[in-house]
């Protein structure tokens, strides 16, 4: 395609990188506007109840302040996500701690602090529902007694859910009744039935830049009518905020302008939440007639904004003596928090990744997202997949131990490969070679030699070393028919200087959107990378190319940019005598000649699936994702029996992500995701008490530092895909999925103890190791001998 030097597959400098290393990049808190006021949010201090009264201390001159309550909202008091259950401001009902009740603004930021403490809110408090189990118990009680509604905290009416349950999915490998019969028969006759329960905790995205926005409201001075609102801020999805503003202000979407400014990390945490803070700031701007800035401090950001969904997954498998998966049932429950927000789609991804990269003759996955009185959980890199893959990859190791097979062998006997069908019935037409990935990952990481060495050294060492693997995949792009519904649009303009500019709503927040999209355009247009411009997202200028989520930007939006570039070339060749091949000068000359005759040149491309995609949303069957990235990760750990600390001492990550567009950025994505995965497994714990996050500070919410992480070795296997530009697939979320199970598998290899819950902190290891002598299984599961045949075969290797 390219006529010059190849650009895809090389590592040109990050587009906005120079400003970043100079410290010249302006993030939202670095910006100001004339007449700017500062805003703050008054939040509930209880998890559940009703507001009785709000009193304003008369010592404060409240006329200096803008105050917004629910009643001031000109449109609907609702933040639109998938449903409309989420209030913009609580009017009377409180459903979680830190729920927004009032908004305040003042010209002086320092005046807000005293005002905050001069507002007193009295509540009728109700007992909260804080766990999946408590939420389930309330549903159970309702089944026995229709009047037992005291712990039903979410009605489910009008939102497609059921009491306390935002969403449920049921997925079968075949027709439901037949699959159920086959499952029953398989469990009846299998050599082994192996069950397990696995849990994961909430995880904070912990972008280093907290959420922040500046909003303006344009009011007609004659009529007092709101003509429009403008919000700029740190965000992933400008058009999500447009939709939210349109509802809150009852304005046409074209009157709601959103600009993304440089964003200091997001990881999903700025997917849906900017709709909340953006609406809040715009309401204050409406009230005071000035631009209003809201920047959360760290403690507010952590207490009030979304986290990764906690999960509980129960797996029951029927396995043959030779290690073949015969049948399985997987039951997933997510804690969705107080409102539905994105829980249905997070749950969808959890459901679709639950089968892992394995062949399941018969499988049923049931999944549900439960309501609790915890601040709503939301998007975080991986989006449900890390939870279900943690459970599955721990369970696969359990099967191996039960059967006396190695973790390697059990996987080899069950891997999907080219031509197989996934659990949803998707035919894998593109090359899938998990066998090779496993072989290479084990060889490149020196797995066998290290495993043997640790087995020899451990009996005489206080430091127990182990090595574990995880094999997994991650679907790129929106699920099933999602990309067709998004219907993404991209523009590529030729500017008066004859050079191109990309117009997309896809946002840069560190992952490299600007850079890779410009590489794609440069390669397709045979122009130097430095010649390509990309416009900062501004919804009055850029089309809706979909949200920047779901590992979709490189593959889906990149492909649209590539097609737009080809359209430009065709136009210039047909109408401006652009030769083939062309030089940069010839391109510019042709483009300018075209512009003198036609005034403008824009190519616009809309999403078209590369291949036919069939998806049945009711049966949950068909082609779940356009493409998958595949991976095998190897973690090495050291567990110190003096301090009960588990440390990852080496990490090897092999993945097949299609063509690697930019090796340095790609490595950065993988390494960063693995670091978050290591944090998820061993460091990051959200401690809740009565619905309050008790450790909403960087001081006591511990993410890995440079001293905590091992050397991370990254390897790519490049199998070009037809879906993305130059053969690329999605990459961003994949590395979040594998570390936690690989690490806990390694800890079991080191200690013989089968931990089943993350985060796994030293106190958890201490508890189990010291309780070991009184615990017959040496595992966190309480195994039921009636269904679990591995009790005798499990032989703990710890001599402590």
């Amino acid at each position, binding site marked *: 395609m390219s006529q010059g030097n190849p650009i895809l597959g090389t590592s040109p400098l990050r587009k*906005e990188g120079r400003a970043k*290393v100079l410290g010249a990049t302006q993030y939202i808190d670095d910006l100001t506007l004339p007449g700017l006021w500062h805003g703050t949010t008054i939040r509930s201090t209880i998890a559940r109840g009703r507001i009785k009264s709000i009193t304003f201390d008369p010592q404060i001159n409240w006329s200096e302040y803008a105050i917004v309550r629910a009643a001031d909202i000109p449109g609907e008091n609702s933040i639109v996500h998938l449903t409309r259950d989420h209030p913009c401001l609580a009017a009377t009902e409180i459903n979680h701690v830190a729920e927004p009740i009032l908004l305040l603004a003042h010209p002086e930021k320092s005046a807000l602090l005293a005002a905050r403490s001069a507002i007193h809110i009295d509540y009728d408090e109700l007992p909260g529902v804080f766990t999946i189990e408590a939420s389930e118990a309330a549903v159970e009680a309702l089944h026995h007694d229709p009047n037992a509604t005291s712990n039903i905290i979410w009605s489910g009416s009008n939102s497609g859910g059921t009491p306390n349950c935002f969403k449920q999915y049921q997925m079968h490998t075949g027709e439901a009744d037949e699959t159920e019969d086959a499952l029953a028969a398989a469990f009846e006759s299998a050599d082994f039935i192996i069950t397990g329960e696995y849990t994961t905790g909430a995880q904070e995205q912990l972008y*280093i830049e907290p959420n922040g926005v500046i909003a303006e409201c344009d009011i007609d001075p004659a009529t007092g009518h709101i003509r429009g609102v403008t919000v700029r801020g740190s965000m992933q999805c400008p058009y999500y905020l447009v939709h939210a503003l349109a509802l809150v202000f009852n304005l046409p979407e074209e009157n709601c302008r959103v600009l993304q400014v440089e964003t200091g990390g997001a990881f999903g945490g700025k997917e849906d939440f900017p709709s909340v803070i953006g609406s809040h700031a715009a309401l204050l701007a409406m009230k005071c007639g000035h631009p209003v800035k809201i920047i959360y401090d760290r403690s507010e950001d952590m207490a009030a904004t979304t986290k990764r969904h906690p999960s509980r997954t129960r797996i029951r498998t029927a396995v043959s003596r030779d290690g073949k998966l015969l049948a399985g049932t997987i039951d997933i429950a997510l804690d969705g928090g107080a409102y539905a927000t994105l829980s249905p789609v997070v749950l969808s991804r959890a459901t679709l990744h639950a089968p892992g990269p394995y062949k399941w003759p018969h499988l049923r996955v049931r999944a549900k997202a439960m309501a609790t009185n915890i601040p709503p959980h939301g998007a975080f890199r991986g989006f449900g997949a890390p939870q279900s893959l943690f459970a599955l990859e721990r369970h696969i190791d359990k099967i191996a131990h039960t059967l006396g097979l190695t973790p390697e062998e059990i996987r080899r006997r069950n891997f999907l490969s080219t031509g197989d069908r996934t659990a949803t019935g998707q035919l894998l037409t593109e090359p899938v070679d998990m066998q090779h990935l496993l072989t290479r990952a084990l060889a490149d990481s020196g797995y066998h030699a290290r495993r043997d060495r640790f087995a020899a050294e451990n009996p005489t060492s206080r430091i127990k070393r182990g090595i574990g693997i995880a094999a997994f995949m991650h679907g790129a792009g929106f699920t099933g028919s999602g990309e067709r519904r998004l219907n993404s649009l991209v523009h590529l303009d030729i500017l008066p200087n004859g050079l191109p500019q990309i117009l997309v709503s896809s946002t840069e*927040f560190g*992952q490299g959107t600007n850079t890779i999209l410009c590489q794609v355009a440069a390669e397709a247009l045979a122009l130097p990378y430095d010649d390509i411009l990309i416009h900062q997202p501004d919804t009055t200028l850029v089309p809706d190319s979909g949200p920047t989520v779901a590992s979709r930007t490189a593959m889906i939006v990149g492909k649209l940019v590539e097609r737009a570039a080809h359209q430009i070339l065709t136009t210039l060749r047909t109408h401006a005598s652009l030769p083939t091949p062309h030089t940069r000068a010839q391109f510019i000359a042709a483009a300018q000649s075209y512009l003198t005759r036609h005034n403008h040149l824009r190519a616009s491309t809309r999403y078209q699936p590369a291949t036919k995609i069939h998806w049945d949303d009711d049966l949950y069957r068909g082609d779940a994702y356009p493409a998958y990235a595949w991976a095998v990760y190897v973690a090495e750990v050291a567990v110190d029996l003096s301090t009960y600390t588990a440390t990852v001492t080496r990490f090897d990550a092999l993945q097949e992500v299609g063509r690697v567009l930019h090796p*340095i950025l790609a490595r950065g994505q993988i*390494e960063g995701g693995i670091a978050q995965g290591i944090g998820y497994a061993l460091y990051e714990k959200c401690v809740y008490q009565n619905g309050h996050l008790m450790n909403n500070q960087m*001081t006591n919410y511990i993410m890995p530092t440079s*001293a905590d992480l091992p050397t*991370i070795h990254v390897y790519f296997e490049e199998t070009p895909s037809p879906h993305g530009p130059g053969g690329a697939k999605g990459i961003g979320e994949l590395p979040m999925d594998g570390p936690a199970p690989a690490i806990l598998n390694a800890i079991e290899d080191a200690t013989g103890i089968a931990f089943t819950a993350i985060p796994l902190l030293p106190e958890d290891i201490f508890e189990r190791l010291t309780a070991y002598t009184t615990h017959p299984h040496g595992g966190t599961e309480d195994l039921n001998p009636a269904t679990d045949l591995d009790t005798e075969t499990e032989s703990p290797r710890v001599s402590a």
Partner: protein
Amino acid sequence: MTTIHLTVNNQPHTLTVPPMKRLLDLLREDLSLTGTKEACGEGECGACAILLDTGSGPELVNSCLIPALQADNATLTTIEGLAPDAALHPIQQSFLQAGGAQCGICTPGMILATHHLLTQHPNPTEAQIREGLSGNLCRCTGYMRIFESIRQAATETAR
């Protein structure tokens, strides 16, 4: 209010500020040096790290924890002072080339921490790099590209 004299990026300043005003706010609000970032406000993350010399040589400090009064008569270097001309400092160049900056919000603090590290250890070992950066949190990179940036900068400055 108190009057303090300080030199920031080779520019002398005399400012009248509340004595307990955070140095971070003084830099960002009074001097419009917004390259120094606030991310945690409690000295955990290093996004607000600067070099502060009160007479015994530059120290890497978290400016969110330093009252303005403490910077009286001090010499400060912020990210804006590292490349006063258009050319990038070798550390900035290596962060740009090796992928040491992703979202960029931790980058100013990281680059100043690197500057301080390379002043102390021109050829740092891996352990010295890890220790030298352990007060600066990065959520994007997993630190590996930052380590590589530092190795490249050390090689570059050694030449």
